[in-house]
């Protein structure tokens, strides 16, 4: 099977958000970057799929040249190659332009199955996976937390407000991965050494203007300073009074 895992380089989840002087972009100077949380699950599923069905795993990202760090970290977990669609202006791309560029590259590389994270933890848009599937004309299951594949089709489960949905689909397909699908492995020393020697392709992504125009950015108003109303079970009576009379939530 030809397997592709799409990943995104994002600020670490403990990053403090600062807005730059233009008030329409983030001050990224203090950011530490990492592979987006759910993309790690996508990489794991790609490697597991190779282990059980055979084939090759390619890690694909659209980002700055520095994203080679994240791509190599993912290759170290058992992938075979990496492709970076290098774009220094990657932060300004929207879901549409990213999905189109990824779809064009996937078309060129060829694949039976593509794994993405269910959402990237920077823009929280949860759109690129199902959009790129649509541009490719492929099946797609979003938020998969269970997956089974046979030669040309598969079944997946996804959590909805009503319960677990079972979805059957045909390949080729794009699967976006939720927590619970697997436990991402750590890279071993051997994998890390091997990843240094694996081929990394850099290519220019399809040029595409972003349609999502950012008018302004703000940090939300801070909550009023918290207050401790007492200690131990003795404080419960005061809490009830406050929830009733002050907060009016009881």
């Amino acid at each position, binding site marked *: 099977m030809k397997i592709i895992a799409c990943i995104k380089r994002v600020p670490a989840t*403990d990053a403090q958000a600062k807005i730059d002087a233009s008030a329409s972009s983030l001050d990224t100077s203090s950011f530490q970057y990492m592979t987006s949380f759910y993309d790690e699950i996508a990489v794991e599923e790609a490697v597991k799929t190779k282990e059980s069905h055979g084939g090759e795993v390619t890690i694909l990202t659209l980002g700055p040249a520095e994203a080679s760090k994240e791509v190599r970290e993912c290759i170290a977990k058992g992938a075979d190659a990496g492709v970076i669609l290098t774009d220094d202006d990657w932060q300004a791309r929207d879901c*549409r332009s990213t999905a189109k560029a990824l779809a064009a590259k996937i078309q060129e590389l060829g694949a039976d199955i593509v794994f993405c994270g269910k959402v990237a933890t920077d823009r*929280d848009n949860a*759109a690129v996976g199902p959009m790129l599937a649509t*541009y490719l004309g492929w099946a*797609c299951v979003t938020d998969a937390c269970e997956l089974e594949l046979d030669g040309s089709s598969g079944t997946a489960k996804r959590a909805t407000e009503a319960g677990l949905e079972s979805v059957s*689909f045909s390949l080729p397909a794009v699967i976006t991965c939720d927590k619970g699908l697997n436990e991402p492995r750590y890279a071993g020393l051997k994998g890390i050494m091997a990843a240094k020697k694996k081929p990394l392709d850099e290519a220019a992504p399809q040029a595409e203007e972003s*349609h999502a125009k950012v008018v302004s950015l703000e940090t939300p108003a801070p909550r009023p300073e918290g207050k401790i109303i007492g200690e131990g079970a003795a404080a419960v009576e005061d*809490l009830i009074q*406050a929830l009733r009379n002050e907060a009016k939530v009881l």
Partner: protein
Amino acid sequence: MSKAILFIEHAGGELRRASLECLGAALSAGLDVTAVVMGPGADAAASALSSSGANAICHLTGADTWSPDRAAADLAALAKESGASAFLAAATATGKDVAPRVAAHLDSTLFSDITSLDSSSGSLRTTRPWLAGKVIATCESASEVFCATTRPNAFSAPEGGGSAEVSERAASADCKASVTGVSAKEGGKLDVQEASVVVAGGRGLQEAEHFSLVEGLADAFGGAAAVGASRAIVDAGWRPHSEQVGQTGKVVSPNLYIAVGISGAIQHLAGMRTSKTIVAINKDADAPIFKVADYGIVGDAFEVVPALTEAIAKVQAEA
């Protein structure tokens, strides 16, 4: 007036609250709304919608098994034919599954989980969270069709009125993936994002069995409360991921959020800081959770929670 196509969800004919809020968002922004329903029970949903304030209703018939790609193709076709300048759905598991595909069919960008929608500047302007709410972005779309999903609890349902016509149209046949079944949640348990009260537990409970303290407190609210969990206890396997609150779990904004034995890591705060009132119970007076808690009690959960459960049960019994 600009035309909008709305994907409206229902459960066997009963309109979903999040979809009504989506309708409310569209009507408040002055859009001319065609509400689209499909699936088993869509008849009842269409007639319920006709007096909801929507301008027109479209019932897609024959779509009895659910396929998100087919739904998206049909919704996009409707948007194209009607010359709509907006497409909206609720940011539910289903809405978020369908909307990006509709956007791609329309070669348009998408804004997920929007928290406001305004047309007073002449074009549609929206706000949505980035970085799990650490930043609020105000955005406009340069695409032909403005596509977005509305965050549950961020908009009001419409007041209703009117008597819109229901038209029927056959759903297309082609589908690449379809749903073969749904295993319902046990005992009709409330989803953590839908509940008006959330009682959440963390590692401070020390053992999986002690989570019953949190469940007991939630039960005392008489059906209004759902339970939530920190990542620490989800990773430990005490609770399912569907209950995890935070940046890599659910973002909730209930009227009342009670955190029991949760330290208040930045990734947890990202998921609950927009709650109306926050209560924290933690034995460490320096725990960061107290910085966002409107009411903090410093103390042992094993002592405070049973007392609180009893007091809440008493309040509920009086009500």
